[in-house]
């Protein structure tokens, strides 16, 4: 299935918005970016590598030649692309449980959005708007976002430990090594193939 590669899932959704509402959404994103980053909530979830929302105005679908038929749309369209770890159900459940207020502020401007809580109508809305991925690539298919963050912490701790213990007497080295183990023990989870999910 092209939506899944290793531990990553590629989700694409598209939903129509009345053009006047896109101005409100753009303003909302501007505010979040500069004053209250929605990214904080996404960081809290900690299983999203990359995510983006793209508003394509009704007149802005690329038209590259006179031979290409001109689109005549009434709606602007909100695209959402996400690269996350875990299963589709886990993702939507977590989104609905943790980011419900933020999601409502983003998608409430889309036609027929039922709200992110309760989760069943929200899932139906996502299913309706989801477009399947035809090809999906990730540079680190066996690593989750938490694996990556943990790996960078281990590497930094190792560099630090190596610098501090260079030329140290063996007894002191063993003592520092024990402290190093305590520091990194929570970050040594093994990467590998993903469990089979639903």
């Amino acid at each position, binding site marked *: 299935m092209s939506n899944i*590669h290793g531990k990553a899932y590629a989700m694409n959704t598209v939903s129509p918005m009345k053009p006047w509402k896109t101005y409100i959404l753009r303003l909302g994103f501007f505010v979040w970016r500069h004053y209250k980053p929605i990214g904080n909530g996404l960081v809290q979830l900690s299983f999203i590598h990359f995510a983006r929302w793209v508003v394509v105005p009704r007149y802005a679908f690329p038209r590259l030649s006179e031979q290409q038929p001109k689109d005549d749309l009434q709606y602007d369209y909100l695209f959402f*692309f996400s690269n996350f770890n875990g299963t589709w159900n886990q993702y939507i459940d977590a989104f609905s449980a943790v980011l419900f207020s933020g999601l409502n502020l983003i998608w409430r401007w889309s036609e027929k959005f039922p709200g992110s809580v309760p989760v069943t109508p929200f899932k139906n809305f996502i299913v309706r708007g989801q477009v399947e991925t035809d090809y999906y690539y*990730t540079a*680190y298919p066996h690593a989750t976002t938490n694996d990556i963050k943990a790996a960078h912490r281990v590497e930094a701790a190792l560099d630090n430990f190596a610098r501090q213990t260079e030329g140290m007497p063996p007894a002191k*080295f063993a003592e520092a090594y024990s402290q190093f183990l305590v520091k990194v023990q929570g970050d040594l989870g093994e990467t590998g193939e993903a469990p089979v999910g639903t």
Partner: protein
Amino acid sequence: MSNQSGNIYGLTILSPIKDDPHGEISHSLAIRMYLQTLPVDGKGPFGKVSSTHMARLVVLDDVVYFGMPSCEEHLKSKYLIFESNFDGELEPYLKQLAAEAGDEVHNIWQHCIGYPGVQNVDAFVAYMKRCQVETTFYFADVNDKTVQQTLKALQTQSAVASFIENNQGKPPDQLQAAFVEFLRRLSIAPRPKPGSTKGKELADELL
């Protein structure tokens, strides 16, 4: 700029797909059939462009109708969506894509309107930019590490775990000697390639 988060660039491209009613199969189906044959590991087109963290290709047949009271409407062209998350700036990335994965790029985008080929790199870059749509809000969880830095860190993490496991209970002098040797081997070890699933095996080979 909303296309970027830290050092990561979020590229979104919508390329209109050719419509030929007299063709044996549609261009959109031809793209899908070709994509099914592409490897998804480092041998695929984006594995060759080593700054790519994650990328996808999606054929958008039409927009979605959610039911009354909204109006039903349709696109007059199908679009190839190219979504990529990569290190650095747009132009060098597109140039590298044309140079390193030219055959695959050509086999995919030859089905798109206005595609000029990859021989003239400047024309290719200009074409892709015409198809680019601005990202409205972009999020990257780790936005200050390159692909290479992340692959190296994952290899180090795996190697450290194996080192700890293999050196339990050793006297201090032997432990220290083993650690010095471990650092030496780690520094000269071959790095995992993008898209590879062999990070752990490479780390185990160090020990």
